[in-house]
C-alpha cells in the first residue's frame, strides 16, 4: 500500500529503534527487516543511522561474519532505549487519537 512519504519519515526512526532493540543488526539486515514491512528507499536508512549514532541513541561495533568481510553492527544504547519508550507512547497516543477521529467521523 502506498503511504505518504512524509508520514513514513517520522516513524522510521521508531522502527529502527524497535528493530535494533530486538537484536544487534548490521545495515543490510536492518534494511531488509524494515522493507519487509515498510517500503522505503534503503539508501536513506544510512543517513538516519548516522544521525542516530551521533545523537547517541545507537552504538556501533565491527564484528566478523561467518561469510564475507567484517560488518558494522548497530546496538541500542540506554539513551536510545529511553527515547524509544518515549516515541512508542507518543505513537500510541497519536494513533489512538487518529483512530477515534476516523471512527467518529465515519460513524457520523
Amino acid at each position, binding site marked *: 500500500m502506498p503511504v505518504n512519504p512524509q508520514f513514513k*519519515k517520522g516513524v522510521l526512526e521508531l522502527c529502527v529503534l524497535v528493530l535494533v532493540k530486538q537484536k544487534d543488526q548490521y*545495515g543490510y539486515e536492518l534494511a531488509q527487516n524494515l522493507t519487509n514491512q515498510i517500503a522505503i528507499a534503503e539508501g*536513506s536508512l544510512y543517513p538516519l543511522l548516522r544521525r542516530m549514532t*551521533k545523537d547517541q541513541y545507537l552504538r556501533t561495533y565491527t564484528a566478523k561474519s561467518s561469510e*564475507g568481510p567484517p*560488518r558494522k553492527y548497530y546496538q541500542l544504547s540506554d539513551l536510545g532505549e529511553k527515547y524509544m519508550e518515549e516515541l512508542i507512547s507518543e505513537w500510541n497516543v497519536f494513533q489512538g487519537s487518529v483512530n477515534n477521529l476516523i471512527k467518529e467521523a465515519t460513524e457520523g
Partner: protein
Amino acid sequence: MNQKSFLSKMKHELKGVPQKEQNEILSDYTEHFEAGKLEGRTEDEIAKELGDPKIIAKELLMTSRLEQAEQQHSFTNIMRAVLATVSLSFFNLVIVLGPAIALFAIYITMWCLSASFFLGGVALLFNALLGNSASPLINMFTFSALSGLGLIFGVGMAYISKPLYKATIRYMKWNVKIAKGEQVA
C-alpha cells in the same frame, strides 16, 4: 547502475563532507553491496533498492554541514548549512530559506540601528565640544540618551546572538527529521 557507478556518483556529491566521514559513508554502502551480493542479489538490484545516490548524498551533506555549524560557530558555516538544507527540496526552499533571509535581515537591521544610535550620540557630543551648538547642555543630554540607547541595544543583540544561532540549527535539524520526505518512497 552497478556498485562502482553508484559509489562514484555518491562520492562526487559528498565533496563538502570531511574526508574521514566520507570514507565512513562510502564504506557503509560498500558493505551494503557486499552483503546483498552474498544473498545472491545483483549489483543492479541492490542499487535500485538503495535509491538515487545523488539524493542520499545531499541528505548526508546537509547533516554534515549542520554538524560543522554546530561545532564551530561562524557565518560561513551557518550559511552553508542553510544552503545544503535548501538544496534538498523545494519544500525546504520555502520553509527554510524564507525565514533564514528574514531573520538575517532583521538581525543586521538591529545591529545597524544600535550602531547608528551610538554614532549619532557621539556626533552630537563632538558638536557640543567643538562649541558648534547653541545649547551644549541639551546636546550633552541627547548624547547620553542616544549612545546609551545604542549601547543597550548592542549588548542586547550580542546577548541573543548565540541562542539565535542555536535556534536556527535546531530548526533545521527538526526540519530534516520531519518535514522533508521526498527521498523516502
